C-alpha cells in the first residue's frame, strides 16, 4: 500500500546552517505520527516545508503518490492536507460557527460568490464539525472571547472542514492546561480512528506524545536520529542523550 505522505530526502539550509538535513519518512493511512525533538531541531522548518510555506533546498514530498513540490499552502490544502497552527489562527471578527463555515465555503469554491448570505451556507455541516470537537454549544459565540483551549478545538474543526486525508498539527497542545491537553489529543486520536485521517504532529509534552502517538520520530540538529514505536523510542540511548543532556549544546564545543 502506498503511504499517504511520503517524504524523501528533504533538506533545507539557511545560509551555512543545515536546518533540516536529508529527512525521509512515510505516514501511513490512519496513523498518528509524532515528530519530536529539542528546540532548534528543525521541526518547524520541516513542517513549513510540508505545508508549502517554505521551499526545500532539495528533496521531495508525495501525497498519495503525487508530488507536492513547489505548491503553495492553498494548493496543498486543496489536495487534502489540513493544518493547525502553533499559535492559533482564527477569524476573531466572526462567530465560532462562521469560522468553520468560511473554510467550508472555500472548500466548495464559493469564495467569490456575492449573492447568498454567507452565514446561512453550510451551517449544518459546520455545526456537525463543531459537535465533533465538542464545541456545538458555543457555535454562535463571538470567537474573539473564547478561551485558548476552545480556540484550539475550533481550529481543529476548521482544519477538518476541507475533508483532509492528512492533518498536520504544529504543537497542537501548546499553551493549554494539562487536562485540556490530554482531552484534545484524545479527541484527535478518536478522529484518526473514526475517519481514517492520518496525523503528523509535533509536540513538546511527552505525556501527550507517549500516550497517543502510534509511532514517534526524533529530530535532532536537522537529522532524524530515531524512528519507531513508543517503546523503542523510550529505550533508545541516543534519544535519551539528546533529551537528557550532552547532545546538542556541547557537541562541537
Amino acid at each position: 500500500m502506498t503511504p499517504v505522505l511520503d517524504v524523501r530526502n528533504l533538506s533545507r539550509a539557511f545560509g551555512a546552517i543545515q536546518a533540516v538535513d536529508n529527512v525521509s519518512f512515510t505516514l501511513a493511512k490512519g496513523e498518528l505520527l509524532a515528530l519530536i525533538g529539542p528546540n532548534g531541531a528543525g521541526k518547524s522548518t520541516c513542517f513549513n516545508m510540508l505545508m508549502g510555506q517554505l521551499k526545500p533546498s532539495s528533496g521531495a514530498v508525495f501525497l498519495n503518490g503525487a508530488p507536492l513540490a513547489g505548491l503553495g499552502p492553498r494548493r496543498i490544502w486543496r489536495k487534502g492536507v489540513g493544518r493547525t497552527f502553533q499559535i492559533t489562527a482564527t477569524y476573531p471578527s466572526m462567530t465560532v460557527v462562521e469560522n468553520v463555515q468560511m473554510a467550508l465555503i472555500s472548500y466548495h469554491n464559493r469564495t467569490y460568490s456575492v449573492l447568498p448570505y454567507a452565514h446561512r451556507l453550510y451551517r449544518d455541516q459546520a455545526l456537525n464539525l463543531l459537535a465533533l470537537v465538542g464545541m456545538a454549544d458555543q457555535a454562535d459565540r463571538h470567537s474573539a472571547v473564547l478561551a485558548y483551549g476552545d480556540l484550539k478545538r475550533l481550529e481543529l474543526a476548521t482544519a477538518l472542514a476541507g475533508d483532509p486525508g492528512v492533518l498536520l498539527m504544529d504543537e497542537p497542545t501548546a499553551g493549554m492546561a494539562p487536562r485540556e491537553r490530554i482531552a484534545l489529543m484524545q479527541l484527535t486520536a478518536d478522529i484518526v480512528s473514526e475517519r481514517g485521517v492520518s496525523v503528523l504532529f509535533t509536540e513538546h509534552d511527552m505525556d501527550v506524545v507517549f500516550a497517543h502517538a502510534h509511532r514517534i520520530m526524533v529530530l535532532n540538529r536537522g537529522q532524524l536520529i530515531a524512528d519507531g514505536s513508543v517503546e523503542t523510542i523510550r529505550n533508545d540511548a541516543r534519544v535519551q542523550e539528546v533529551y537528557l543532556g550532552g547532545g546538542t549544546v556541547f557537541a562541537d564545543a
Partner: protein
Amino acid sequence: MAFFIAQILTGLANASALFMVAAGLSLIFGVTRIVNFAHGSFYMLGAYIGYSLMQILPGAVGFWGAILLAGVAVGLIGVIVEICVLRPVYRAPELFQLVATFGVILVIQDLTLMVWGPEDVLGPRAPGLRGVIRIMGEPVPKYDLALIAITPFVALALWYLIARTRMGVLVRAATQDREMVGALGVNQAWLFTGVFFLGTALAGLGGAIQLPKGGADLLMDFNILTAIFVVVVIGGMGSLPGAYLAAVLISVLNVFGVAYLPQSTLVLMFVVMVIVLMVRPYGLFGREEVAGEHGQIGEPERPIKPAGLTTRLVVLAGLAVLAFLPLFGSSFAQVLVTDILIFCLFAASLHFLLGMGGLVSFGHAAYFGGGAYAAALLVTYAGTPMELVLLLAPIAAGLAAVIIGWVCLRLTGVYFAMLTLAFAQLLWSLVFQWGEVTGGDDGMVDIWPSDWASDTTAFFYLTLLLSVGGILMLRHTAHSPFGYALRAARDSARQAEATGIDTKRIQWVAFAFAGAMAGLAGGLFVFSKGSVFPNELEIAKSFDALIVVFLGGVKTLAGGVVGGAALKGAEDYITRFEYWRLVLGITIILVVIMAPDGIVGSLRRAGERIGLIRDPEARS
C-alpha cells in the same frame, strides 16, 4: 552646458528646504511609526513665525537668528501637539493617527489665519545675499548658493546627532525595537517627545529658510505635503541619507521638468516614485515594514449579522421619508440631500475597503474623481448620453483600481497607504497638468444630465435610486461569502491561505469593487454639479472620506453611511462660521481620543449600557 549647471544649482537649492522638512518627517516616522500628516503645517508655521521675527530682529544676525528661533518655536509647538494629541494614539492603527494629525492640520490652518490674516506674505531678502552671481554667464541667486552650502551642514549635524550622541543611539535603537529600548529603562514617552521636537523644528527651519525664495501663504502646508511624502517614500521611511538623496533627486528633476516639459513636472515626480517603489518597495534606504506593528484599540470587532426586521423597517421608513422629500422639501433641500447621498455612497465604498478588508487606502479620491472625470470626458468628447456614462464611469474607475490595486497590494500597512496616496496624486497631477484635454485648473463644465433627469426632483430620484442601490449592494456583499473571505484575509491571512483562500486576489477584487462604487458616486456627482474640477481628486478629498468613515465608526457596518450623512449634513451648517476648521479640527481630535469607536460604535455601546440593545456576549 552653463544652462545645465545653473539648472542643477537651482535644483540643489530647492532641495534644501525640502530635505529639512522631509528629514523631520522621516525621523518622526522612524522612531514613533507615526506618519505625521500635519508636517506641512509645521513647515507653514515656521515660515510665518520666521517672517514675524525677521520684522523685529535687525540685520544679518537678526535674519539668521530669526530662522533658528523659528525652528525652535515650531519645535515647541510640536511638543505641545505631541503631548496633547499623539500620546493617546501611539498604539492605535494608522487610521487613528492620520485622522488625529489631520485634525491638527485644520486647527493650525485656522490659527494661522487668525494670527497672520489671509494675505500672502512676501519673504524678506537675506541681508548681504541679495544679488546674483554669474556662473559661466548664467545668473544664479546668491541665496541659492548659500542654501546649497548650508544644507550639507544641517545634514552633517543631523548625522552627528544620530550617529555620535547618546540621544542618537537611543533614537536608532528605538527605530529598530521600541519595546526593547523601553525595557532597558529609557523613558520612551520623553524620547518620542524629543524626536517630535527635533522633527517639527526641522520642518520649521525649512519653512523659515525658504522665505526669501517662496514667502509664506496659507496653502503651503498642503503644497509641500505631497512633495515631502514623495521624498520620504522614495528615500525610505526613517532614513536620513535616503531623504537627502530623494530630495535632491526630486528637486533637480523638477527644475529640469520645468525647463523641458513644463506640463509634466508634477506627473514626473509621481512617476519616479512609482517606479522606485516597484523596484524597491520600501524605498531606496528603507527597511521592510513589519506587518501588525500597529495594534488595535477599543473592543474587538463584533461579528456582523444582516439587519433584523426592526432595523429593516426603520431603514425602510427612513427611505420612505426621503422618497417623499420633494413633496415637502424645498429644492434646496433636495440638492442638499442629493449631495449627501452621493457622498454617502463614496464613504460607504471606502468603508467597505477599510472596515471589511482592513485596507487603509489614503487615495480613495482617485476613484471618485476618476469616475467623475471619466464621465466628464465621455460627455465632452464623445457626446455619450448620461445613462451610458453612469454605467461606464464605475467601470473606468474600477479599471483604474484594478491597475493601481495590482501595484499597491504588493505592500502592506503604511507603505500601502502611501502608495495609494501617491497614485491618487499622480491622477490628480495628470488631470491638473494635461490642460488641453481636462481643462486643468479650470475644470470641465457643461456636463448636464439627460433631459428627463435635468429637473432637480428627477435627478434627486435618480441619485436616491443609484446611491441607495450602491450602498445596499456594498452592504449585501459584506454579508456574502466574498465579504466573509475579505474579512478572513484581514483577520488571519495565515489561516485563510491555509484553507484555500487566495487572500491577495480577494483583496484585489475588493479594491476594484470599492473603486467602481466610488466611480459611480463620482459619475453622479458630475451630473449633479454640471462640472468637475481637479480638487475632486486631491488629498483633501481622500481625507474627507477617511475622516467620515472614522467618525462614523470603522468597526461598524453602518459607519460609512452614518458618518457621511452626519458630516455632509453638518458641513453646510458649520461652514457658515468663520473659523469652522478650528472647531472641526478640535472635534476630530477629541473623537479620536475619547470616542474611538465612532458615532455608530459609541451609540451602540450607550444603547447596550442602558439596556436598549442586547449585548450578544453578555451572559445573564
